[in-house]
């Protein structure tokens, strides 16, 4: 292994540590932080790390500052973006339960996110609660929505709910909408 290859291997390991170890309450690392630590070729290092992570069923997700994903992101957009390690495949219901999720919580998050998307990104909390009240008791709705806001899946601002940073990183909203629409009526 040449000294250059050794350096790259070292940087890949370092990138893995930076991305996987949570430093604050919120996981993820900004592009400019990665650039500072890994150098200006940090995107290439991340691509190499991604290949290693893919073998383990993991991936690197980039979440840009703007709501839509740019087709050809600029350097500035890449530096401002957040980088996360996520799973490549969705978890099974059993895996979700094992990690502490209840069916009710998943269903409430599913409805809330889809409803917010249908309202173009922001929806009144009372309206969401009303839609949810068709399926869940009020007590569960309120507690779960608060929990989802606290965990970053939803954002709240003056009784208005919007898509939280964690949902932007973890949930393919387009796929979620599609899944709800194609489900057979029960």
């Amino acid at each position, binding site marked *: 292994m040449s000294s250059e290859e050794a350096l790259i291997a070292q940087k890949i390991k370092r990138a893995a540590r930076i991305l*996987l*170890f*949570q430093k604050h309450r919120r*996981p*993820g690392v900004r592009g400019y932080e990665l650039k500072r630590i890994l150098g200006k070729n940090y995107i290439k290092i991340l691509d190499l790390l991604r290949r290693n992570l893919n073998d383990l069923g993991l991936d690197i*997700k980039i979440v840009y500052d703007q*709501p*839509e994903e740019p087709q050809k992101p600029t350097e500035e957009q890449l530096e401002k973006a957040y980088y*996360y*390690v*996520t*799973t490549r495949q*969705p*978890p099974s*219901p059993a895996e*979700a339960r094992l*990690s502490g999720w*209840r*069916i*009710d919580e*998943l*269903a409430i998050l*599913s*409805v809330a*996110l*889809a*409803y917010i*998307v*249908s*309202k*173009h990104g*922001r*929806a*009144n909390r009372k*309206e969401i609660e009303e*839609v949810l009240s*068709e*399926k*869940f*008791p*009020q*007590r*569960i709705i*309120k*507690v779960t929505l*608060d929990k989802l806001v606290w965990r970053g899946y939803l954002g709240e601002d003056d009784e208005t709910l919007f898509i939280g940073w964690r949902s932007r990183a*973890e*949930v*393919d*909203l*387009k*796929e*979620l*909408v*599609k*899944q*709800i*629409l194609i*489900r057979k009526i*029960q």
Partner: protein
Amino acid sequence: MKTRRIAYEEILKIISLCEAVKTGGLSPFEVDVREKLKILRKYLPYWKTLDEIINDAEAFNELVTVIKLQGDSLKMQASMLYMDSELLAMKIKTLSRESLARSLLESWRPIVALDQLTIQRIQEAIDYWNTLPPLSERMKREETSLTPLKTLTLEDTYKLKVLTQAEIKERIEKLLKELKEKADGKGEVDYWSFITEETYEETIEKAYYVSFLISQGYVQLEYDPVEGRYTLKLEFEKSKGDSSIPILLSYDGWLKVRKHE
């Protein structure tokens, strides 16, 4: 003077309209921004006081926010499947909780992160440890403060003359009637929503009487460990063996439930 007052009210209307858009009550496209800007321009010469000028600037700023929201909305519609919210609400009604949860799971790729200790957290732990009294002292406090728990049976309430048999019977019958009304043909009611009352004392009292309904076989309490839900069932098959389900009804827990009811 009259025109100025009307103009001022117009500006306030624009601000409140934009506020409604910001809180998600109205679609951003329901605001005719061009028309509202014309109104702002028309009334601009009327403003004399600082308050009026600030209001005008605020209305302008709110309109800018609406334009931004219109832009965000268009981008979102272009990048996602466009879906009408009423259509979605109807679709949600037809799907089960499991289907909704499964829809999310299919589109979910959770973040993988490792929690780790930081120097600050270690320092906090050391500080906590240093201020923690020795175990012997803590045990002593608990010994003196704790009294053994006892169960209050129906017979005890008669002996204590808290209630007469007739009163208890009447209350239980009333409660059973209320339970049937709330079940509304479904044959079951959520335990927490049924027992939660205006005050903590009333809630405790209701939970106490509900326990008699259960022990006397009028209703059955079922616990779903998957969803963590307690349900009172009016229609059920009698089980062969008895079992008991303890439910903690603390004041803090009650406050939390009341806050969200």
